[in-house]
Structures are given as C-alpha cells and as structure tokens.
C-alpha cells in the first residue's frame, strides 16, 4: 500500500515537472523581431524581454495562440458538400483564407483547399462573390 502511494506521489511530481518545460517552447519565438505584419502572430505568454518576467497578467499584445479547428474538434473528414464548414474558411469575396490567419495546420489546410475547390466547381461556393 505504502509503496503504491509513493509511486503515485512520484507520478504526480513528474506531471508538474513536465508543465514548466512547456512554456519554454513558446518563449523561444518571442525573441523574434517585433516588426511583423498585421497578420504576424506572437505566440502566447508574456511577449518580450527576458528581464520583464512579471506575473501581472497580459502585457502589451497578448495574442492567444491559434489552434487548428480540425485538430481540436477532431473533424476527420473535410468534405466538399459541407458548405457550412467550408464557409468559415472562405473570405467575404470567396477567397480561401490563409493558414496564418486561421491557424489551421498544414495537412488540414491542404485538405480544406481541395474541398473548397471541389465545392466551387459544383457551384456550392463562389469563385468570386459579389462584385
């Protein structure tokens, strides 16, 4: 019994040990130059100087890390018939929204693009909307 408890204790110790390592990863891109376009994203976490590591909540631009909708919601099939789904990734004028704005991961964007193009072909989505 006692042994088991110890094991569990060590396990719980390991789990938090892993989590502090995780924020270290997003902090690396934060060292990038600030001058990125309007679409440029700075991953979450306090952006900036290594000195200013306050816990006082979000400073400057705190941008939430974008996540791939398909990965998070576990949408497996991106079908050309699912107009509702595809429409979320099409701009007002009918353009496919780039990955850097939507946060969709590369494999899913590839499938998404193919599906949108098929939907356009059968007049479910416009090639160019409203002139």
């Amino acid at each position, binding site marked *: 019994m006692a042994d088991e408890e110890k094991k569990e204790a060590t396990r719980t110790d390991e789990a938090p040990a892993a989590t502090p390592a995780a924020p270290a990863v997003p902090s690396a891109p934060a060292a990038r130059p600030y001058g990125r376009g309007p679409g440029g994203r700075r991953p979450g976490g306090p952006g900036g100087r290594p000195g200013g590591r306050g816990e006082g909540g979000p400073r400057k631009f705190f941008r939430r890390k974008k996540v791939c909708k398909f990965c998070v919601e*576990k949408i*497996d*099939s991106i079908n*050309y*018939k699912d107009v509702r789904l595809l429409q979320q990734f099409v701009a007002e004028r009918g353009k496919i929204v780039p990955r850097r704005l939507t946060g969709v991961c590369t494999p899913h964007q590839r499938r998404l693009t193919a599906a949108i193009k*098929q939907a*356009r*072909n*059968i*007049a*479910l*989505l*416009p*090639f160019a*909307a409203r002139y």
Partner: protein
Amino acid sequence: MTPAEGTGAIKEAEKKMPQQQRTYEVMFIVRPDLAEEETERVVSTVESGATAAGVAVKNVERMGKRRLAYKVRKFHDGVYVLLTVEGPGSAVAELERRLRVAEPVIKYITVRVDEEQKRLAKVKKIRDSKVRQRPQTAEAAAGSEPTPATA
C-alpha cells in the same frame, strides 16, 4: 458513331487488365425550370444510364433545390442530386460523357471517395485504440467509462 466506338474501346481496355472496383460520388445539377416529375425522370434516366455504362449505383440522394453560388447556363438555382456509384474508372468516364450530353444536366462533378473512406476508417481505428488505452494508463474511472460502447 462515336458512342459505339467509345464503348468498344472500353471493352478492349477491360480485356487488357482487370478492372478495379472503385467508389465514386457523382454530383450533378438538374436545371430548375423542370416540373417535379420531369426532374424525377431525368434522375432515373441518369441512373439507368449509369448501369448501362457499367457502374453499380449504390445510393441516390436528392439534395433538393439550392441556390447556386454563381450563374450556370443563366440559371441561379439548381436541383442537386448525389449519386454514389461503384465501378471501374472507364465506366465512370462513360457515365460522365452521358451527363455531359444530357441536356437538363447543367453541371456535374465526380469525386473518388474510396481512398478517403479508407483513410477515415484508419483514423477512427487509431482513435478507438487510443481511447481504449487511456483508461488503463490513467487507472482512474476505467470501469465506469463506457468508451468501447460509444466507439
């Protein structure tokens, strides 16, 4: 005539190599200004044409009248029909030719779906196995979760 030659060529191709059975989705749009029974007749002729072309019609889904995203042959609406079909590629090509010739059909698209279905089945399998593994590793609430039933 050309249609006879076309089918002849298909038969020759069939002799050369064994034809693979593949699943396709054929979606086509029928012009909207036809009466209900006429549209129905068009669908049934396409269906019989598909069997004549050498594909097995698995399912016919009438998706109803929808607004088109852009003008097609001066129509703003169209009656969408989805045909799920199984057969070799050459036969599907013949079906496409028939659709192109059919006057009331204003647009069509053929999509191969069997590989996508295979991929989806694979993903589902992997996900199911992960779901089954997770209760074992977590050791918590393994029995109470009805995961195999939902999966």
